């Protein structure tokens, strides 16, 4: 039993689902049958949160999968939201298309800079993040924009079967699409190959530069869609309000089993990671725990994952055991 539990935690493919199940069980026990946790309201709010963080985590997770790190997602969320709100008053579809288009363009441009000049993603996307934020400030003239088309806002948040909304269904659909592409097409195989060993993939004849550019375009599109959906449903967009998505998104991707050394992770795992964080946040507040406890719980889960995934953990433990054994002998 202990062994099986340990395996479920150490096996990276199963881990996101194990952690999610663990979170649900613990919250259910803490709830003690009062029914606040297992309510339709909790599920609905979990899914609303999922729609916000999930798509950003998916984009960031894909970039981590190819051993890069797309810091610019935080900037794209804000920019796409503002573009959609500014251009989508009469036609929401046009605004959404332009917002997502901006995300794709930003991803492709950054991908081109990285691959053509051979630069690291952290530097380029950091500059990209600051530039995108600057563009957002210029477009909005440093003000909060309101979106007068309230029908869209209400429509996006309209409950479907009391559990989902149009917004969360859209986020789920993107995840399903991403999972199908990653599992059933050669694109998925190419992405995993690029992330596992880029040199080997290149030697095998794969155009890894194209894969990198594609991943950053997808990451930009996904983050942009998150920004568009959020701004539409809030009926407002502002250059500052959406900046704090990077840390939760990265946390969700990592809890979702995306390996920071590249080549390991899947959209369904990322979805489980996002759900875990959302369940913790909504679940804890549903059963009346103080609001910021979920930050502490998330932090502890991340510390444990960082510790378990650390490459030198096994070596340190072996060295410590040998040391102790030697001392007992002498």
């Amino acid at each position, binding site marked *: 039993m202990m062994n099986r539990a340990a395996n479920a935690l150490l096996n990276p493919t199963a881990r996101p689902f194990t952690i999610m199940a663990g979170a649900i069980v613990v919250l259910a026990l803490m709830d003690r049958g009062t029914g606040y946790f297992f309510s339709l309201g909790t599920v609905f709010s979990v899914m609303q949160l999922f729609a916000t963080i999930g798509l950003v985590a998916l984009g960031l997770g894909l970039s981590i999968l190819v051993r890069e*790190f797309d*810091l610019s997602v935080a900037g794209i969320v804000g920019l796409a939201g503002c573009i959609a709100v500014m251009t989508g008053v009469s036609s929401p579809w046009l605004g959404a298309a332009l917002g997502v288009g901006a995300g794709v363009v930003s991803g492709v441009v950054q991908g081109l*800079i990285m691959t053509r*000049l*051979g*630069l*690291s993603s*952290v*530097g*380029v996307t*950091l*500059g*990209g*993040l*600051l*530039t*995108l*934020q*600057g*563009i957002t*400030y*210029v477009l*909005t*003239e*440093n003000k909060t924009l309101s979106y007068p088309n309230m029908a869209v806002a209400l429509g996006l948040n309209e409950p479907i079967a009391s559990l989902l909304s149009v917004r969360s269904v859209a986020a789920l659909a993107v995840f399903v699409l991403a999972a199908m592409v990653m599992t059933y097409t050669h694109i998925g195989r190419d992405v995993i190959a690029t992330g596992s060993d880029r040199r080997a993939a290149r030697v095998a004849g794969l155009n890894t530069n194209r894969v990198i550019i594609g991943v950053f375009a997808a990451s930009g599109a996904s983050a942009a869609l998150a920004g568009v959906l959020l701004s539409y449903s809030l009926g407002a967009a502002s*250059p500052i309000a959406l*900046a704090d998505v*990077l*840390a939760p998104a*990265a*946390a969700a991707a*990592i809890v979702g089993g995306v390996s*920071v050394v590249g080549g390991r992770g899947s959209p369904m795992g990322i979805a489980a990671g996002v759900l875990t964080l959302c369940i913790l946040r909504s679940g804890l507040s549903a059963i009346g725990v*103080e*609001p*910021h*406890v*979920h*930050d*502490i*719980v*998330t*932090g*502890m889960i*991340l*510390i444990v*994952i*960082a*510790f378990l*995934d*650390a*490459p*030198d*953990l096994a070596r*340190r433990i072996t060295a410590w055991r040998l040391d102790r054994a030697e001392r007992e002998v002498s």
Partner: protein
Amino acid sequence: MSEIALRSRFRSSRAWARHLVLGIRIGGATAIAVFALSTPGFTSPISINALLNAISFIGCVAVGMTFITLTGNIMSLCLGATVSASALVFLASLSFGIVPAFLIAIAFGVVITAVQGALVGFFRANPILVSIAGLSLLIGGAALATGGQRIYPGGEGLQIFKGRVAGIPVEAFYFFATVLIGQLVLSWTRIGREMTMVGSNPRAAAAAGVGTAMAVTVAYMIAGACSAVAGVLLAARYGSGDMELGTGYDYTAIAAVLVGGTAIQGGSGSVIRTLIGVTIIAIIEVVLLLRGFSQQLQYLLTGIIVLAVIMLHTIGERR
């Protein structure tokens, strides 16, 4: 074509690229200097003071970030939160007196980053992941401790951390002291040299008998101490504190480190370079302000310039 001819052509093209990069760097620096000095009012005491203020707070964090980048650990997303949290600790412990409060705040910052550094150093845990974990724990812990309220100080003597001496903001003295101590540790102590070695090649450093884990841990502790100094200065300046105080400092700090020319992959860089990076960014901001650019255009131009400088540096260092 023979292999030798190919090789020499390849080499000369690389040398040519390096000359080009050097030329652009000198040209860029001259352009910034000319642009700044030709701006009316740039050399006025008010503008110089604004410049010094701007670089002091962010500069301390950037000096700390330099140590993390230099040891090959890219960046920490937790330093901004460390700034805020140590500001809160400083304000909360002011009743013990100003100097003890300062020391408690520094010690707090050091402990926060020492734990992260130990995880990264001893087990080679992923630095960005560890820093996000630290960020979550700090935000949650601070909210529980303060109940989400702002903290107002209960003690006296904040003057030694704000105001002016000989017309220069006091914050600048603390910042320059931080730069000086940082650079001395980096180039004149054994552990400082070891940090650079670990960053450039951890395996070679370990083979050469360097305590790599210790070097990384100490680098993180220095980063925590520097962030805590920024936290104390900010707390003294505003007279109150909350967790918003240091928000966004992580990104500005790493931008300053990279603009200064410390390599993102570690092993090459210095505190002085970071001082230059912070100064360049601050000069650009002050000049744009004096020339009457709107706040939003300032953000955009600063972003584009940072992107351009980072590209330029990394092209020069490309393998």
